[in-house]
């Protein structure tokens, strides 16, 4: 297997990690929604925490995308 093919395969494999990040982001917003449906008046107060949790979790998905880019172009 030459290096070019291995790069493409490596990049494809690295993107598998984003599945976990997607699940994590879904968990955050799902929990926020179920909490907001029970207590709508308190929901807006905690929205900044939701955005912070989303950004930190999304970062891990972006890290796996970074590994894919490094495999492809590094």
């Amino acid at each position, binding site marked *: 297997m030459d290096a070019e093919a291995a790069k493409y395969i490596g990049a494809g494999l690295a993107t598998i990690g984003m599945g976990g990040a997607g699940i994590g982001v879904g968990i955050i917003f799902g929990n926020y929604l179920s909490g907001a449906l029970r207590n709508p008046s308190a929901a807006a107060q905690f929205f900044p925490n939701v955005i912070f949790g989303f*950004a930190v979790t999304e970062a891990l998905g972006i*890290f796996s*995308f*970074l590994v894919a880019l490094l495999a492809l172009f590094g």
Partner: protein
Amino acid sequence: MSSPLDQFKIETKVPLEIGGINASITNSSLWMFAIVIALTAFFLIAMRRREMVPGRAQSVAEMLYEFIGNMIRDNVGHGGRPYFPFIFSLFMFILGANYAGMLPYSFTVTSHIAVTFTFAAIVFMGVVVIGFAKHGLHFLSMFLPSGTPIYLAPLIIIIELISFLSRPVTLSVRLFANMTAGHILLKVFAGFIISMGAAGGAISALAVLPFVMNIALSALEFLVAGVQAYVFALLTCIYLNDAVNLHH
């Protein structure tokens, strides 16, 4: 065939060398100058007449001030007041750099790990120096939360140390990879529009699909630009809290 990665290329505009170090003016540094000048001009002009009932520009400036002020007060408390100018400048520069990257034909300054790692390194070094200056060697008690059983201590300290040392890495890579990934996505879909439009026939009519996708992605990129600047500033406040108030 140009690659979607060409937009991140650094081009030297004015070659300079200071003491053997390449200090050239590049497209990246030109955009940094432009962002700093634009932000400074905005705040100077907005706050020129300090009205009690603010006009539009002064309202925006005051809202940004209060946003960061509340963030620091909620996360660091009263001891964070001296660090407000630093965190405000950091937040405004990253916000300005992220949004300047959304302008057509612009260069995204924060899409380079050199830039974002500099910010993260300054924050990390600052936190370490402030922690040791304020608490001396007692700062190291941060790595062993109170109430852990003594037999777990070696493992906990190693885990906490690794997690602490990974802070500058995650802080910088989060911002850099978000900006880079977003802009690569935009370029890739823009390439699809061109290649589908040039294909002719039925495929040309379908070229509107990547165009609509690009509109949605641009909206997402505007959101991500703001969120990433906010998260960088918020994490800086949280790390500062660990250093200033030691109750881990």
